[in-house]
């Protein structure tokens, strides 16, 4: 490399800039204007603190600058310039007063190689301290401060510090006050930072007995005994511990199971649909395990039937309703020597059938978690098969036709950052669900199954609303990454189960507004490790009204709310009122066994003996016309293969795919 050229560039930059300075402190910070500036060798005695870069390492020296924003603008601070090649820089950005600084942003290696790059939303009139430290390298370099317009298409976060004891894992409403709380856990304590109405947190520390299995791999939350206080599941390296909140919310009681489990993703979900939350834990090295609830919050251990690969490889379980039949299905992101993902369809009768190959979701991708959402607003759940190693795959749900690989041209074909976390949330409230995976990048859904990478300079983590402003925030350890928001509208829906489980986990929430119909499946446990808010969050874009919110509860009950106020939280309580005339539920049809031999059992709304049935092959030909008898259809005359079945009920035609052996 030509070492002369950079030298001349450095001189040029110095000449262009009035910002060059001798060694400095926060109190003597050099004022900055947008442009290039030369940072001398880092020798200033004032060590930048705290470390905003998440390295959790303080340096020995710092060089200090100060920038006062003259306008609201996106501020970029960068050392990511070719002339700095080979230098290892670190940047800290603070507000506050010297000696009492608060992190706004920090970056270590966000640029090429070991150079730094960060952006934050600058507020007119605010003073920002910008410090470079010598954590890695004391050599001087050239840096740059740039302004660009804030726009609604930008997703940005501002950092605030919290002080929690333990590993910060969860952002979930622990006390049912409609506000997401911060949860940190260690082997011997649970620290809940309860979000207060009007803002801020109240920290309560609950000592616990030493957990047999600390939450090394994942944390899930749910109210298994419906006592109004959330319980926790610790996914440990050699077993599973539950921390059950007592009835007055003053503490947690440990329940640890002796069974060896190399836990990965964990979830609370009502697996057997008896109205009580059960728990599911992916097993890394053996068949998956689950814990069934007897209705009083007492759990029993089970293993087998929900992903039985002898040597495991189960990493990211997520419970969603992929076939819109209003029962909850299980998708397992798999990794290791047998990385074929699995989809277990809920047959509606307590049994599950593995249907990955049948519906085209048996990708061989090394993945630790996959992000499910209706990315194209066509009424069914699509999935980003997020690679932990190798290439991502974006799979569009085409209903009875199964899933179609639409990676090409989606943005995921050129997005190389791999990660163990992939979670789907609408970070810009535009009604199109985005995906947060690796690379400090949110893949922003811009419609048409297309995603644009937006560099956010934060890491993925638990997602929820830490300031009740309707924009989703992210927890990175003791840093709250608060969403800068925009002018878009939103609606948050809390599902308060009564017949179904208390959290309404497994419910399908549907919101209809001018931009279309949005759906969410209420869940405990997405991504790989963290516990994100259970509240169903809907961005509304510029829509100023919601026509209708519908909750399809796991119990089968359907509740509809018309024209709710927006830009707030709507709590829908599961209610049965037989005075109201029954409405036709959305058509749903389930069939089993699948594959079937001679007889196919059909279940669904409005199905009765005598209903006409058509069997259609994959070329669209009607190969058989029959009627339902005793809830069954005779398919003994069919050749082996894949077919669609159409059932004609009064008012609707129900359709489903099945295989004949």
């Amino acid at each position: 490399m030509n070492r002369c050229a950079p030298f001349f560039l450095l001189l040029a930059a110095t000449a262009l800039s009035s910002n060059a300075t001798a060694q400095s402190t926060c109190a003597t910070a050099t004022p900055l204007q947008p442009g290039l500036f030369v940072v001398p060798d880092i020798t200033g005695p004032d060590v930048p603190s705290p470390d905003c870069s998440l390295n959790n390492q303080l340096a020995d020296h710092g060089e200090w600058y100060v920038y006062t924003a003259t306008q609201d603008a996106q501020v970029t601070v960068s050392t990511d310039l070719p002339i700095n090649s080979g230098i290892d820089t670190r940047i800290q950005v603070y507000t506050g007063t010297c000696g009492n600084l608060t992190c706004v942003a920090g970056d270590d290696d966000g640029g090429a190689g070991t150079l730094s790059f960060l952006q934050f939303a600058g507020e007119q009139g605010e003073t920002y301290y910008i410090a470079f430290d010598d954590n890695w390298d004391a050599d001087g370099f050239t840096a740059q401060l740039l302004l660009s317009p804030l726009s609604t298409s930008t997703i940005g976060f501002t950092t605030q510090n919290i002080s929690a004891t333990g590993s910060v894992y969860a952002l979930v409403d622990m006390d049912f006050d409609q506000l997401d709380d911060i949860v940190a856990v260690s082997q011997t304590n649970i620290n809940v930072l309860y979000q207060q109405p009007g803002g801020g947190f109240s920290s309560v520390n609950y000592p616990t007995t030493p957990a047999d299995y600390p939450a090394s791999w994942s944390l899930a939350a749910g109210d298994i005994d419906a006592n109004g206080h959330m319980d926790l599941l610790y996914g440990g390296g050699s077993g599973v511990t539950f921390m059950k909140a007592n009835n007055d919310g003053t503490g947690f009681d440990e329940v640890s199971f002796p069974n060896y489990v190399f836990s990965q993703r964990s979830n609370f979900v009502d697996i057997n649909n008896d109205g009580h939350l059960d728990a599911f834990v992916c097993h890394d090295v053996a068949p998956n395990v689950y814990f069934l609830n007897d209705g009083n919050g007492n759990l029993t251990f089970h293993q087998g039937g929900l992903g039985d690969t002898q040597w495991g490889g189960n990493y990211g379980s997520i419970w969603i309703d992929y076939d819109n039949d209003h029962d909850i299905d299980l998708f397992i992101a798999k990794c290791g020597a047998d990385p074929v993902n699995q989809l277990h369809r809920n047959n509606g009768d307590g049994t599950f059938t593995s249907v990955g190959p049948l519906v085209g979701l048996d990708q061989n991708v090394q993945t630790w978690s996959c992000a499910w959402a209706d990315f194209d607003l066509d009424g069914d759940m699509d999935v980003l098969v997020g690679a932990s190693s190798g290439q991502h795959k974006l799979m569009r749900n085409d209903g009875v036709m199964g899933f179609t690989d639409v990676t090409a041209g989606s943005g995921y074909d050129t997005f190389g950052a791999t990660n163990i976390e992939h979670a789907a949330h609408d970070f810009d409230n535009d009604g199109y669900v985005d995906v947060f995976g690796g690379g400090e990048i949110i893949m922003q859904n811009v419609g048409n199954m297309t995603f644009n990478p937006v560099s956010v300079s934060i890491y993925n983590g638990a997602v929820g609303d830490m300031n009740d402003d309707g924009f989703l925030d992210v927890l990175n350890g003791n840093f709250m990454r608060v969403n800068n928001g925009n002018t878009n509208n939103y609606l948050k829906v809390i599902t308060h189960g009564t017949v179904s489980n208390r959290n309404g986990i497994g419910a399908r929430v549907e919101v209809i507004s001018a931009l279309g119909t949005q759906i969410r499946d209420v869940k405990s446990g997405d991504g790989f490790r963290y516990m994100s808010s259970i509240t169903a969050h809907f961005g509304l874009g510029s829509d100023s009204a919601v026509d209708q919110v519908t909750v399809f509860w796991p119990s089968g009950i359907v509740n509809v709310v018309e024209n709710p106020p927006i830009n707030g939280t709507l709590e829908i309580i599961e209610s049965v009122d037989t005075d109201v005339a029954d409405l036709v539920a959305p058509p749903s049809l389930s069939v089993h066994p699948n594959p079937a031999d001679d007889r196919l059992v059909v279940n669904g709304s409005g199905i009765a003996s005598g209903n006409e049935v058509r069997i259609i092959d994959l070329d669209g030909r009607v190969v058989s016309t029959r009627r339902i008898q005793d809830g069954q259809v005779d398919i003994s005359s069919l050749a082996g293969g894949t077919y669609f079945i159409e059932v004609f009920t009064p008012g609707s035609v129900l359709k489903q795919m099945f295989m004949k052996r």
Partner: protein
Amino acid sequence: MIIPVRARTALVIITMIAGIVACRHDALEDLVPSSAPGSVNVDPSTVPYATLSEYGLFQGALASLDPHPEVLPYDVITPLFSDYAKKARFVWMPSGSRASYAGDHEVLAFPERSVLIKTFYYDHVQPGDGRKILETRLLIRANGEWVSATYVWNAEQTEAYLDMTGSNVPITWMDEQDQMRNVTYRIPAGAECFTCHKQSGVTIPIGPKPRNLDRVFNYGEGDVGQLEKWVQHGYLEPGYPASIDRVTAWDDESEDLSDRVRSYLDMNCAHCHGEQRHCDYRPMRFAWELTADPVNLGLCVEPDEQILPFDAYIVSAGNVDKSMMHYRISSTEVSERMPLLGRTLVHQEAVDMIADWILQLSPPCN
């Protein structure tokens, strides 16, 4: 306004089909140790037995680990680190059958009924400053497959009982530097054994490859070549190559640093980071015969998962702080440490060696 709607009138109470739970529960108190004096007893149709003594692998007091005359002690050049536990290794094969060489880097082809025996213990255990044997692991060749069995020793050190459920044992011991140390020693569950001892879903041994066995061992009459002794004992078919591409003793400071590191990584990491192994999807390939190419060690290779809050390489030449390998082998965080299984303490001597090795690598990665 809430409009309740009943969509499905029937709530179906559903019960799951309970899966079969593959756990072994032994009524330990009912079992009487019954060694068969005079002969080693390995019946492929009934192994693994309930107790270690039933095999007759040792004579006299079980805890003396005095091998039956047919049973041969052996050692490997570089061992797996297991929280500083000491290990005693033995092998037994039925008379008239022997293992054959299958390649420097391949596990010997063992005959039916072979038993690989590895006992884990600590010395200077407190209180009492004595030896405490924790477990004996067997790999038994039965009906053409390897059967794994873990025997957990009782407090009296008189018997060890088959137990594949996994357990933790707190140990305090005085180490070789006279430092008092603590560990919660993990006796693995069956699924944990299988995690490392598998390839393509089939149970396999890891250690007994010629490259690990080609060393000297003192059988009581001075150091002799271990493989040669196996041949004399009738355990190994003669005619294996005179020159074997053997690993380097990781702690032999007279040896080449790079070779010591490669040897250490082979024994501690290659069982997961190899083809058809548990973590074969990561780019490293740590087997000895593959690491002459430093890319397989992760040199200047970016990890798939950046757990550090800055961009690291798996091995960043000259930069210990930005080497993911160093970070992970130095970590005791359950979800970050490497190896994931078999270690809860930091193997500081090895961490120091790998730091020294990283520091002398050049040029820098970027």
